[in-house]
C-alpha cells in the first residue's frame, strides 16, 4: 500500500504492471519495435504523459529516486504534476539532479548530463508511429515495418532537400534502431538525437493514447536517417546560455520585452544550475 492509501504502490495494480513489464521485455528484445499494450485509463489526461507514467509505474521500486522533466526543466507545471503523482502514490524519493536519479521521466528532451548504466530514461510519446504522417492507416504501417519497407520515409527526406536544400525536420527526427526498425525518438529536438545512440542507460518509450511501448536497450546503435552526401548534422544555436555561458547545450529562447529583445538560456535547468554552482565554487576558490 502506498503513501496515499487506497491505491497500490505507484497507482497501478500489480497485474497491470506485470502486463506492462511483459510488453517492456518484448520491446527490449526487439529494439525499436512498437509493442501494443493494454494502456490503462490514468487519472491524468491522454496526451499529458499517460504512456510514460505507466512505464515509470511499472519499473519503479521503493528504492528508486525519480526525476521528472518537461522541456528539459524540472519546474514546468506538467513535470511538477507528474512528480507529485508518484511522490503521492509511490512515496519514492524525488530529485531534480540528473546524477542522483535512477529513473528519469522526460517529455521532449534528453538531459545534457551523460546518463549511466544505472539509469532508466522514460520518454512520453504522443505519436509513436514515425510513418503516421505518410500513411494514416495502422494496418498498412505495421506491414511496412514488418517488411522493413521504408523507402517512403527516404522519399520524404529527399523532398526536403530538393525543395528546401536541407532536411526540414527540427524535432521528432526519425531514426533507425539497431539497423532494423524505423523509430520515432518522440518530439525531442534533433539536437538530442546523437545522445540516443550507444547510450549506457536503458531508454523506454511509452505512448498511452496510442497504446504502444518501445525501447532502445543500452549501448544500441541508433542512426538518424540521412543521405551519404547530406549527412545528419546538429544545428547549434550560435549563442551561449545567458546564465551559465554554456555553448554546447540546447537553449530556450526567452522574449524579454516587446521590442524584440531576447535571451537564450539552457533548456536543461539542472545542467544550468550545476554549471552555475561550479562557477560559484571556482570564484570562491
Amino acid at each position, binding site marked *: 500500500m502506498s503513501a496515499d492509501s487506497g491505491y497500490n504502490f505507484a497507482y497501478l495494480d500489480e497485474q497491470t504492471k506485470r502486463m506492462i513489464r511483459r510488453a517492456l521485455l518484448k520491446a527490449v528484445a526487439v529494439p525499436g519495435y512498437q509493442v501494443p499494450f493494454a494502456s490503462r485509463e490514468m487519472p491524468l489526461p491522454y496526451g499529458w504523459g499517460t504512456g510514460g507514467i505507466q512505464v515509470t509505474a511499472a519499473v519503479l521500486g521503493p528504492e528508486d529516486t525519480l526525476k521528472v522533466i518537461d522541456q528539459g526543466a524540472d519546474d514546468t507545471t506538467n513535470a511538477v504534476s507528474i512528480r507529485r503523482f508518484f511522490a503521492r502514490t509511490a512515496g519514492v524519493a524525488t530529485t531534480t539532479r540528473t546524477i542522483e536519479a535512477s529513473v528519469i521521466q522526460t517529455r521532449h528532451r534528453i538531459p545534457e548530463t551523460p546518463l549511466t548504466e544505472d539509469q532508466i530514461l522514460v520518454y512520453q510519446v504522443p505519436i509513436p508511429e514515425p510513418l503516421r504522417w505518410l500513411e494514416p492507416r495502422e494496418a498498412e504501417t505495421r506491414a511496412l515495418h514488418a*517488411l*522493413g519497407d521504408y*523507402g517512403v520515409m527516404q522519399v520524404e527526406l*529527399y523532398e526536403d*532537400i*530538393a525543395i528546401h536544400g536541407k532536411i526540414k525536420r527540427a524535432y521528432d527526427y526519425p531514426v533507425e534502431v539497431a539497423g532494423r526498425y524505423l523509430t520515432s525518438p518522440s518530439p525531442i529536438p534533433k539536437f538530442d538525437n546523437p545522445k540516443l545512440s550507444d547510450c549506457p542507460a536503458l531508454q523506454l518509450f511509452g505512448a498511452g493514447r496510442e497504446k504502444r511501448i518501445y525501447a532502445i536497450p543500452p549501448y544500441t546503435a541508433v542512426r538518424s536517417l*540521412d543521405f551519404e552526401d547530406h549527412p545528419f548534422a546538429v544545428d547549434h544555436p550560435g549563442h551561449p546560455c545567458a546564465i551559465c555561458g554554456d555553448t554546447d547545450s540546447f537553449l530556450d529562447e526567452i522574449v524579454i520585452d516587446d521590442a524584440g529583445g531576447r535571451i537564450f538560456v539552457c533548456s536543461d535547468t539542472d545542467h544550468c544550475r550545476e554549471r552555475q554552482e561550479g562557477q560559484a565554487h571556482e570564484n570562491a576558490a
Partner: protein
Amino acid sequence: MKMPPDAILSARDLCFDYGNGQGVRRVSFDLWPGDVLGIVGESGSGKTTLLKLLGGLLAPSGGSLSYRETSGEVLDLLALPEARRRHLARTELGFVHQNPRDGLRLAVTAGGNVGERLMATGSRHYGRIRQSALDWLTRVEIDGARIDERPTEFSGGMQQRLQIARNLVSGPRLVLMDEPTGGLDVSVQARLLDLLRSLVADLGLSVVIVTHDLGVARLLADRLMVMQGGRVIEEGLTDQVLDDPREPYTQLLVSSVLAA
C-alpha cells in the same frame, strides 16, 4: 508447374470470378525475353482483370503464375512471401496504370517519384539519386528543369511519361501496361507510342500491354491475344491476327477499327 526453359513469365489456367459472371477463365500463356504481348478485346472482356492478376493487384481463384528471375530461379508468384513480392515489384517488374494518378505520388516532386524505387532498394546518395532521376526525365522527354515540380502541374501526357520513368528507373525486365495511351489526345498518343516503342526496343523489355486500340496493338505488340467473355479466343503474331483474323469476334473487332 513446368515452365518452358527460356520463358520469363508463364501463366496456366488463371481464373478470377467477380460473382456477376464476369472475370477471367482459364487463361494460359508464356512470355519470352524481349517479347511484347498485346491483349485486346472489348471492355468487360477480362483483359484488365487479367493484367491485375499478373501484377498481383488481384488474387486469382485458380491457376498458376511463374516468373523467372535474373538469377534463373523460377518463382511461384502466387505463393511468394509479401516481402519478396514487394521487392520484386520495385526492381524487376513495372506496372503502368491507365490513369497516371494511380501510379504516381501526386504530393511528391517528379524527382522524388522517379527516385522512389532507388531509395526503396537502399540508395542513400542524394546526388546520384537525383542524377538518375534527371537522366530518366530526359529519356522520357521531360525538361530536367521541372524535376522539383509536382505531377499535378504536368499535362496528362507528361504525367504518363513520368509514370513510365518511375517504373523504368530500376531497370525492370517485365513491364505490365494497362491502356498506357488511353485518355490522351491523339497527337499526344502518337508521341507517347513512339517513345514507348523505342524504350521497349532499346531496353529489351518483356511487356504485356492491354489495349482496346488495335492501332496501338499493331504498333507495339509482337503477338496478340484476343479476349472475349474472360477467355482467350484467338492468339498469334500481331500481323497475322489483325490481317487474317480467324474468329468471327476478332473479325468484328478488326473491321470496327477499319471503319474508324
